[in-house]
């Protein structure tokens, strides 16, 4: 199979090192935030979750995007293959997370307000 990547020899390695730099910086930022835990980020809530946690999750997805696009060459695959992989997984995973977290929150409320003693 002819690969689209073979067209751009020199820039391919350059792209790899750029992505490595991005991934490293993002990881360092995450670790620094994780250790410092700035109060204004942990005290602010957005949609029921701490702002800091939102930042972590968004940075994670940002990293995942770079790994999938640059390292796994999704950016050089055809649109069809890329969408078959990305859309399918994003749809199914979002749905799964939504129903499980909703259910988990509901059970938490039941433990709080219900008449079932689980800590005796």
């Amino acid at each position: 199979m002819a690969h689209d990547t073979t067209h751009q020899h020199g820039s391919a390695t350059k792209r790899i090192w750029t992505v490595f730099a991005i991934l490293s910086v993002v990881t360092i930022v995450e670790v620094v935030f994780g250790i410092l835990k700035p109060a204004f980020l942990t005290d602010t809530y957005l949609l029921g979750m701490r702002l800091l946690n939102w930042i972590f999750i968004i940075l994670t997805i940002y990293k995942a995007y770079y790994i999938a696009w640059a390292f796994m060459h999704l950016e050089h695959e055809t649109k069809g293959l890329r969408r078959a992989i990305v859309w399918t997984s994003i749809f199914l995973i979002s749905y799964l997370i939504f129903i499980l977290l909703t259910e988990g929150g509901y059970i938490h409320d039941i433990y709080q307000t219900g008449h079932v003693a689980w800590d005796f």
Partner: protein
Amino acid sequence: MEATVVRTGTEGKTWGGGNEPLKASYGKMMMWFFILSDALTFSGFLAAYGFSRFKFIDSWPIADEVFTHFPFLHGVDAPMYYVALMTFILIFSSVTMVLAVDAGHHMKKGKVTIYMFLTILGGLVFVGSQAWEWKNFISGEYGAVTTKGGNILQFIDAEGERVALSEIAVPIAGERVEHEANNGIWFDAGKDLPTYSLEEVKAGFIQNEDLLIRTQKLTEDGQKTILSREESLMKLNNEAVGTVEGANLVQNEYGAPLFADFFFFITGFHGFHVFSGVIINIIIFFNVIIGTYERRGSYEMVEKVGLYWHFVDLVWVFVFTFFYLV
């Protein structure tokens, strides 16, 4: 022969067959579909972790207090540093992998060999680090007391520093002794004795006026609840049923046993992926050395195994976030 060949007259047309709209080889596509299904498996695990965590959102262990070790820095409180290092090792081995794939595109056998070797090395270091992390988690650090309801009580001193069971317990003679097989005809094995019995811990706790108990419950600002001296004594006398050191599938000195279950299961499943990735990489590595792909005229196998390797890295990025950061 000519007579048996069926011609449809549609060759070269869109539906004439032989089209490859995705422009990917069979093997590469199947690797992608495997990765997709594996990604769903992992997200099933992580979503289940999220479910359990939301269920116990106000009493979940704080990861910063659980994973605090760093090699050669014994006793130093180093939350996150080690796992950040592990993340770097895995990301870097991903970089060497993609460099190997790139060198393969240019048919440079020597470079592919070196980069594959570095990738394997990175993978092995990562698996070893994970084993070390497990070891620390299993053996625990301070120890705790369990209650009837399956909760954990931890000990702190007046300054709020954690106190280990070994510092609290006072030896009491005449306690239960380990029953051995040579003392009974029908006896196989009994429950192992804990290092420190509950009575020893209780006695030590009463003697030392400074000690307080910390429960699993989280306060508004995400810290563990600290009981007053009276509440601590009452809790210990009324609810404690035993001591626990370290974590396993049934007990966890850091809090909810579910945390330990999910930690072992998810990092274990991921570690197994890294391990099998290393094995597959080794096979491909030797194939590169003996020139299989040189003769084949394509290093696409390196690319396929590379996809798997990057996927393992991708999963770790999420495991790192949801176990250690969030």
